[in-house]
């Protein structure tokens, strides 16, 4: 084996996120150690795996069989690794195998045999396989009639679960307990959907997972088991998860462990595999007659077991098996310190487990099972407020966009850390954001991201633990632990004054042990966070620094993997002192803060070596590469809160902190850390504040004679309307100081402004609302730069394809900025120089401009590494993160980046399909979950590759065009001609149809939904008659006001997304797409590696 092709996972999306950057990166490292070359295909430009230090050759191309086949033909690899790039890579591999590409090119599939992978992907066959090896799976069958369903239901035994088909998205599903109920619900469901699923109902079963590793010599170990806080019914990616399991006895733990090993062996897995179980929390409760191969001959009634000499039997079912690295395996890897992906990579090369050393301890073997002496809590991070109209409830499909992992010595300490890590403005599990008892109960009963807080609030209000258990199925064990926190808070509140508290050092320590933050304790006592901190200083109450060593202290391990706890009185490590430099990570991935900041963080940490500094990363996101064991000299899996960061800073006696490369979360700490006296490397906190404070920044721009859109703050409706009238609509409105929820909006008329203004004032009366003039049809341009002591050292300019008004995170971005005229380009650089100098910028920054009629306006300045940092670095070949570190040590040279002979286009990845109800339209607020970027000789080539990377598939040449507004129609007419000439069959709604008819283009007329005729436009989409939908709407159709009315536009967009059809809602990007299709056929798109485009320094 000399050359391996590794498939990446592409853009980050809901259910497939940063964890595959981690697994791919580890695999590449493992291959490299064996002297094997890795060819990587991954269009996700923000990843760390697509760095020149890792893969030997990188192709920023779609992970689809067509492209991969061409890369195989060009590169002629010996083997292909499919298990490190999530479902995307696995599916692509199966396709390549089925097409015979692998055989033809003599490419060996490494690790688990492809036949096993295919088996695990086929529900029925896999279920049959498991039954053969005496493993139970829940019964489930699709039926087409009530009678047929009833027969199955009776076979399974009531209660059963009825699930309607996918298109209804969980509606019309439900649990039925008898024949009568079944008939009622099934009938209703079948009237909507041609078939329904009748499933065995595993009410409130525990959900348990095992991560298993196997080598080709049949050595098989389980690295970790995990228990879901939420019972079955909530996807494991949506659940709070603890590791190891807390409520399982030895028998349960090892019984399921054995089963997972049996499954893995039966499949011939080589590498890593994840097995998920449902476990009856009380098998005495199980109803008779259920198929359970383990239960033969055993009475399930509790009392009988006691008298019997026979070992008890468990009622369990396998829910899912992933024959690849997964989200859970990334979590398990971070939770245990065991480098699962690294080990899996070695195993697929055929190495025995016994030949691999434990990289964490360096003294013991990889062939073992980690023993934890701590508990890990994972909580998903949701961002549902960011999606208009999206359902808030959580359930069997994933909606969360990221996660955090906390480590501690008790559940109380750890879960309180975890909720703070979420960065959602809460400081502990007791947060009263509920209206009344009824509201609390509602949030306990219906699972949403707020359930944990509702449960705690319920406990506080005196709801019984048993009742909460009955409603939620959350094991009493967890509920009692939460109660312990609630009780402690109650006691704290009864203390009253700080004077009394100061008498009890033990009391404060006890609160810290239960995970209370200084701030929360202060709030309860009417004191500030710093006052509590002073008290801690006085009593020397500081958290201990413990290491994650994989074996509970049994051997002295050389690990740098750390966490803090108040359940200790020693430290496992000594401070690094002046040699150490803290780099703050990004925290959980969420809309707007994702893998790109991890790239910056990792690159900065690694570059510190050049200056003989030791990097200390603080981060709490298990999906990241920055939290890998070998990325930094020290890693704290910790909160990015002021309290914890300063605890670590003071313990380490570090020289300084870098907080400008982890996105907004660490950046937000700048002024507080500065005031506290922490030395911050980079731009001064007061200067950062200049850019963050709208008033100050606006004054600065005026002083520097830099243009900006007119804006003002308002607290009352009247003057707001007057202002809008004066500057003329549209205007951009943004409430200040609210949580991520309701943020920016474009208002096109008075009615909209009134409505948004009213909402904004309702949300927050104390803070004014900012309204600015919105310049229509302006071009948006971004400059990323790094300055040293106010002098610009390196910069790059890119422009958006979409007109201003689409959030920069959702925009299609082109480098170089080929649409910026020379004059504007000069003005942009001059502006950047002026601002860098005025704010004495020392480090990375990003400016967003609007350009219209050769006038350059500044919209925003961020004095930190931006989202586009890795994109720009890889597009230009200059690593901006490295330059940033050079700046910190005053050693940066001047870069002059030459205008390239290639184009790079970054395209957003949306996950609307996962978010039931959300309106998939581009707006001023960001909604994309990831991005890709591809290279090409022209923008069209690069764009087409990018689109194909985000799922565009044009198998059929049919398109639906619905174009609102005369302007759109005129601007898009030429493109429609082109589509027609390309042989596209076009469908159009009435106005568009008439318009095109007048221009001599024939389209097939389809009626709108409200017209009442069938088939209507939604039917056309649902029947998949079209493979492309271009829906250009008039102003404001995507606004909340409109979306609530479920316009035709909304219905078209939603149906398009739900049916997995390519959707374009922006004029400019739709035009570029058509141009690209006009210029290029699939085979014209060149297979060129990154190195063939860019000379990297």
């Amino acid at each position, binding site marked *: 084996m000399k050359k391996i092709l590794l498939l990446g996972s592409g853009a980050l999306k809901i259910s497939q996120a940063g964890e595959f950057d981690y697994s791919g990166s580890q695999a590449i490292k493992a291959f490299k150690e064996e002297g094997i070359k890795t060819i990587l295909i991954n269009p996700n430009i923000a990843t760390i795996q697509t760095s020149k230090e890792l893969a030997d050759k990188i192709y920023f191309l779609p992970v689809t069989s067509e492209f991969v086949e061409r890369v195989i033909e060009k590169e002629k690899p010996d083997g292909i690794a499919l298990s490190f790039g999530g479902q995307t890579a696995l599916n692509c591999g199966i396709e390549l195998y089925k097409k015979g590409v692998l055989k033809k090119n003599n490419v060996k599939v490494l690790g688990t045999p492809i036949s096993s992978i295919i088996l695990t992907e086929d529900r029925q066959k896999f279920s049959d396989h498991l039954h053969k090896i005496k493993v139970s799976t829940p019964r489930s069958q699709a039926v087409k009639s009530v009678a047929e369903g009833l027969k199955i239901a009776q076979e399974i035994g009531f209660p059963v679960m009825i699930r309607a088909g996918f298109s209804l998205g969980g509606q019309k599903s439900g649990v039925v307990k008898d024949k009568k109920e079944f008939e009622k619900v099934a009938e209703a469901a079948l009237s909507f959907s041609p078939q329904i699923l009748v499933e065995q109902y595993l009410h409130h079963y525990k959900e348990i997972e095992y991560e298993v590793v196997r080598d080709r010599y049949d*050595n098989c170990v389980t690295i970790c088991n995990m228990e879901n806080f939420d019972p079955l019914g909530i996807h494991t990616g949506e659940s709070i998860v603890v590791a190891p399991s807390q409520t399982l*006895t030895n028998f349960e733990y090892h019984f399921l462990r054995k089963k997972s090993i049996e499954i893995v062996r039966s499949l011939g897995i080589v590498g890593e595999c994840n097995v998920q179980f449902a476990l009856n929390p009380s098998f005495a409760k199980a109803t008779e007659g259920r198929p359970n191969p383990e239960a033969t001959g055993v009475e399930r009634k509790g009392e009988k077991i006691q008298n019997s000499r026979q070992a008890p039997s468990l009622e369990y079912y396998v829910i899912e098996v992933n024959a690849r690295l997964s989200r859970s395996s990334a979590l398990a890897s971070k939770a245990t310190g065991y480098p699962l992906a690294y080990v899996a990579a070695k195993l697929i090369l055929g190495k025995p487990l016994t030949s691999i050393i434990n990289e964490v301890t360096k003294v*013991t073997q990889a062939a073992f*099972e980690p023993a934890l002496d701590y508990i890990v809590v994972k909580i998903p991070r949701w961002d549902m407020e960011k999606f208009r109209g999206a359902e808030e409830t959580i359930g069997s499909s994933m909606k969360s966009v990221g996660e955090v992992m906390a480590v501690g010595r008790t559940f109380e300490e750890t879960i309180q850390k975890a909720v703070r890590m979420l960065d959602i403005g809460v400081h502990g599990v007791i947060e009263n954001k509920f209206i009344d008892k009824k509201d609390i109960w509602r949030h306990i009963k219906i699972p949403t991201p707020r359930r944990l807080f509702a449960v705690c609030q319920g406990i506080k209000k005196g709801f019984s633990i048993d009742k909460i258990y009955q409603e939620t199925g959350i094991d009493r064990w967890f509920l*009692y*632990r939460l109660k312990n926190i609630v009780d402690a808070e109650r006691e704290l509140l009864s203390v009253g004054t700080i004077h009394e508290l100061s008498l009890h050092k033990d009391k404060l320590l006890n609160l810290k042990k239960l995970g209370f933050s200084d701030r929360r304790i202060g709030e309860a006592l009417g004191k500030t966070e710093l006052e509590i901190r002073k008290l801690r200083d006085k009593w020397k109450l500081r958290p201990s620094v413990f290491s994650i060593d994989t074996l*509970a202290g049994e051997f002295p391990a050389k690990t740098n993997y750390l966490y803090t706890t108040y*359940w*200790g009185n*020693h430290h496992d490590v000594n401070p690094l002192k002046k040699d150490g430099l803290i780099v703050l990570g990004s925290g959980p991935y969420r809309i707007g803060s994702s893998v790109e900041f991890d790239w910056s963080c990792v690159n900065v940490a690694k570059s510190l070596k050049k200056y003989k500094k030791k990097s200390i990363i603080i981060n709490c996101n298990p999906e990241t590469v920055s939290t890998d064991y070998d990325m930094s000299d020290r890693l704290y899996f910790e909160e990015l809160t002021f309290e914890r960061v300063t605890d670590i800073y003071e313990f380490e006696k570090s020289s300084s902190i870098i907080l400008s490369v982890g996105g907004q979360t660490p950046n937000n700490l700048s002024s507080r850390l500065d005031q506290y006296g922490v030395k911050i490397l980079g731009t001064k906190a007061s200067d950062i504040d200049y850019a963050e404070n709208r008033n100050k920044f606006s004054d600065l721009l005026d002083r520097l004679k830099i243009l900006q859109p007119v804006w003002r703050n308002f607290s009352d409706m009247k003057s707001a309307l007057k202002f809008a009238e004066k500057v003329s609509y549209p205007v951009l409105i943004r409430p200040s100081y609210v949580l991520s929820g309701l943020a920016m909006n474009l208002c096109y008329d008075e009615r909209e402004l009134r409505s948004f203004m009213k909402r904004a004032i309702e949300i927050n009366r104390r803070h004014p609302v900012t309204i600015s003039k919105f310049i229509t049809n302006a071009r948006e341009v971004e400059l990323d730069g790094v300055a040293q002591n106010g002098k610009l050292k390196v910069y790059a300019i890119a422009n958006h394809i979409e007109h201003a008004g689409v959030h920069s995170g959702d925009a299609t971005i082109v480098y170089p900025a080929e649409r910026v005229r020379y004059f504007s380009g000069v003005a942009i650089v001059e502006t950047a120089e002026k601002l860098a100098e005025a704010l004495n910028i020392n480090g990375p920054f990003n400016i967003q401009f609007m350009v219209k009629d050769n006038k350059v306006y500044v919209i925003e300045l961020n004095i930190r590494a931006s989202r586009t940092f890795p994109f720009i670095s890889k597009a230009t070949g200059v690593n901006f993160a490295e330059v940033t570190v050079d700046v910190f040590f005053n050693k940066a040279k001047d870069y002059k980046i030459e205008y390239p002979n290639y184009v790079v286009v970054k395209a957003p990845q949306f996950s609307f399909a996962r978010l039931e109800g959300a309106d998939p339209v581009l707006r001023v607020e960001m909604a994309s979950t990831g991005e890709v970027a591809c290279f090409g000789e022209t923008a069209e080539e690069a764009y087409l590759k990018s689109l194909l990377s985000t799922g565009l598939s044009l198998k059929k040449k049919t398109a639906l065009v619905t174009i609102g507004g005369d302007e759109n129609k005129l601007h898009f007419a030429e493109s429609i001609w082109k589509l027609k000439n390309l042989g596209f069959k076009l469908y159009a709604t009435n106005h568009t149809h008439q318009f095109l008819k007048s221009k001599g283009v024939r389209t097939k007329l389809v009626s709108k939904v409200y017209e009442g005729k069938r088939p209507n436009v939604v039917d056309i989409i649902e029947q998949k008659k079209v493979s492309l939908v271009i829906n250009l709407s008039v102003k404001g159709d995507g606004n909340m006001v409109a979306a609530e009315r479920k316009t035709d536009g909304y219905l078209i967009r939603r149906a398009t997304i739900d049916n997995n059809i390519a959707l374009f809602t922006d004029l400019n990007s739709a035009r570029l797409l058509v141009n690209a299709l006009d210029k290029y056929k699939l085979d014209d798109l060149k297979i060129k590696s990154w190195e063939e485009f860019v000379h990297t320094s």
Partner: protein
Amino acid sequence: MQSKLILKDGSTFIGRSFGYEESKAGELVFATGMVGYPESLTDPSYEGQILVMTYPIIGNYGVPEKFFWESSRIHVAGLIVNQYIDTPSHFLSRKTLSTWLKKEKVPGLMVEDTRYLTQLLRDKGSQLAKIVFKKDVAFDDPNKRNLVTQAVTLRVTRLGKGSKTIVLIDCGVKENIRRSLLQRNVRLITVPWDFDIFSLNEKIDGVVISNGPGDPKMTGVTIETTKKILAKKIPLLGICLGNQILALAAGGDTYKLKFGHRGQNQPCIEQNTKRCYITTQNHGFAIGKIPKGFKPWFVNANDKTNEGIIHEKYPFMSVQFHPEAVPGPVDTEWIFDKFLDQISKVKKLII
């Protein structure tokens, strides 16, 4: 109530009691398993030892009926944990861990920093220690006594049906060794450690020497019995203490490990293969000198200590780990099958 854990080297840990409040001395050891405290506490091999659990949260699923225990009582001299959970949640739980400890008169303490305590034992080796309430007690080295006498019952019992008759020499046997054998359909005669098995007047097809507490060299009578078994070429399986006894009887030697192996994640490599098994272990002593005629069977992948021996010619075998598991992984259950297979082969030869 506050009390102290005092180590022989003078280190003192303040603890909060959740067990029986009586001062007790013993040998302080740590175990790294994450599940199975009821099984561990009732494992007779812990006789005389104060056990530190490295897993920080203990008591989660309460205490089940005696049926699930590994012997009829708690054998540890004391229990040390980080956090004790008094609100267990499990449908098989019949009482809290605290209630149980109190009932069985065993002290239990929550101490400040069990990780530090573990590191101390790891670096300095297992130590004598005492849990002290009001009244002080003297340090007491359990390894100086023959602990086996405290760990076992004195009755001969007969259980199960089958074509093979196995004698189990009980030096402090874990219930699951008995269960594992009975599941494999044998006629099982359990005898005390010092019982003369040849006085049974039975045709013995095989002998299993169980696990048990303390220094193997204190079990003189059992060693003598084993010598006779070897001489008579009766198939023999030694487990844990039984492994050490076999080594001593066959002319090998044993020694005390620095801090022992106690956990559920010990990797053991079967010699001359690439196979590695994850095993449950609980021992402070190990085989040093391999007896003549035997070869190493298993070796610990982490510290390379011997984990089992097998005779080159005769069906004598023994393992340092626990094939019966409980608590811990069940990967090496096949040892019982292998042993019984050997017996079948021998029986065939005789026929």
